[in-house]
């Protein structure tokens, strides 16, 4: 698989449930970021976790990072219909250009 691959590809849950999305990557990273994209719209930065961090919280979001397994997870607690979107992880290897390598994303559907 390529750098930054998410699973599942699609997830359907009921409002109020928790949603967990996973991301795996291949090379060493400086940080890993999660983004949300509503259908046909722009990318919204959700959270950034650095390679020396293991867990980070932001509101209903919880991100973990396991550099030994080269994986990260995004947990959305108490989901709402408005959380329906595609979620992408993106890795920053920390090279000179700080470019991001995106995964293929998880499409989340939260049913009201």
């Amino acid at each position, binding site marked *: 698989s390529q750098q930054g691959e998410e699973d599942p590809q699609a997830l359907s849950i009921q409002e109020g449930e928790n949603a967990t999305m996973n991301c795996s990557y291949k090379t060493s990273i400086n*940080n890993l*970021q999660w*983004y949300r994209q509503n259908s*046909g*719209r*722009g*990318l*919204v*930065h959700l959270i*950034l976790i650095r390679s020396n961090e293991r867990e980070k919280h932001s509101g209903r979001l919880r991100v973990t990072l396991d550099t030994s397994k080269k994986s990260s997870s995004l947990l959305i607690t108490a989901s709402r219909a408005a959380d329906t979107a595609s979620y*992408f992880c*993106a890795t920053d290897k920390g*090279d*000179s*250009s*700080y*470019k*991001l*390598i*995106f*995964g*293929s*994303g998880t499409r989340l559907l939260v049913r009201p």
Partner: protein
Amino acid sequence: EPEVTQTPSHQVTQMGQEVILRCVPISNHLYFYWYRQILGQKVEFLVSFYNNEISEKSEIFDDQFSVERPDGSNFTLKIRSTKLEDSAMYFCAISTGYYGYTFGSGTRLTVV
């Protein structure tokens, strides 16, 4: 958090025509990027621009592409002779360092 404005939001062009996509970051930043997303696919890095020159470009960014920051404010992506496969969403982004990236809302380019 700084905002990034992209214009136009949607552009339809004939194959072989030149297009210029524009990006205006409100705040002054050092790192600028262009990414693209073909419908239903992952976001792909095109080019990074630092200190008024290209710092890195991907294989996608061939001779038909060019970037400029002509007046120190606008940041443009030019596609000289568009092809059908250039149809995609094009995102401008700025690096905000600790807080990750800020992406523009994108320009949907349709080549007919």
